[in-house]
């Protein structure tokens, strides 16, 4: 069996082994080009087993022609779907109107969830505020007194007066 264009053969090596194909081109005494059930590719002659049949096919025939010729013999060829180019949607900047709408939606959502949170917070706040207030008030007093004292100190520079004033305050507090 000679190796010629249009000769049916079976590939016996690689992942396409056992698949039928047609010789489309003979490159030299070692390599041929196959197409059919296999991928369209250059193949070593030792990796194919020629069959008896020969098809009339042009040199470097397109895959469609090969597929049609093989269909008549009842051999279905591979069919690869051409890849469709799908562009990714590019992120666009939102227009001011869209932003407004987005904000309004967010507000609506906030309104839905607000009341519950308020109720919970109010209960907590009352407890916390009373304690905090009591604590804060004391703290404030403590804070205020020294500050006032400092101011007074600054105003009254002599050291003797400093000592007198806190003593006087304490005395007032004890009396009350």
């Amino acid at each position, binding site marked *: 069996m000679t190796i010629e264009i249009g000769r049916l053969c*079976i590939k*016996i*090596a*690689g*992942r396409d082994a056992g698949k039928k194909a047609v010789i489309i081109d003979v490159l030299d005494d070692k390599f041929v080009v196959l197409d059919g059930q296999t991928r369209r590719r250059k193949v070593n002659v030792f990796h194919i087993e020629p*069959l008896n049949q020969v098809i009339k096919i042009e040199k470097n025939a397109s895959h469609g022609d090969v597929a049609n010729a093989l269909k008549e013999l009842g051999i279905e060829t591979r069919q690869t779907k051409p890849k469709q180019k799908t562009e990714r949607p590019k992120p666009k900047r939102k227009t001011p109107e869209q932003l407004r709408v987005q904000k309004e939606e967010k507000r609506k959502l906030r309104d839905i969830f607000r009341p519950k949170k308020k109720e919970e917070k109010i209960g907590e706040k009352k407890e916390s505020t009373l304690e905090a207030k009591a604590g804060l008030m004391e703290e404030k007093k403590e804070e205020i007194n020294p500050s006032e004292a400092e101011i007074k100190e600054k105003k009254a520079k002599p050291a003797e007066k400093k000592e007198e004033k806190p003593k006087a305050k304490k005395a007032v507090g004890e009396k009350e």
Partner: protein
Amino acid sequence: MPAPRLRSRSLRKVFRKVPGNRVSLQYKRRKHKAARCGSCGNVLHGAPRALPFQMKSLPKTKRRPERPYGGVLCSRCMRQEIVNKIRQ
């Protein structure tokens, strides 16, 4: 003295250097025999010599060659098989 179940030689000993910078003795399952061709009995290429659970973690394309009878017959026997089928 190792535990009685480790004194049989069904498990192999592996010396591992552990993070505390000391060498510890670990017991591991023995490796399986290499995969062999179904017709000629030669060792198969492209089929790793690993335990079943290790094979499971591998991708399928790394467990055996991607051709008809991959991981069962060697390439030479596979070719012979196909040629014989054609000529019958």
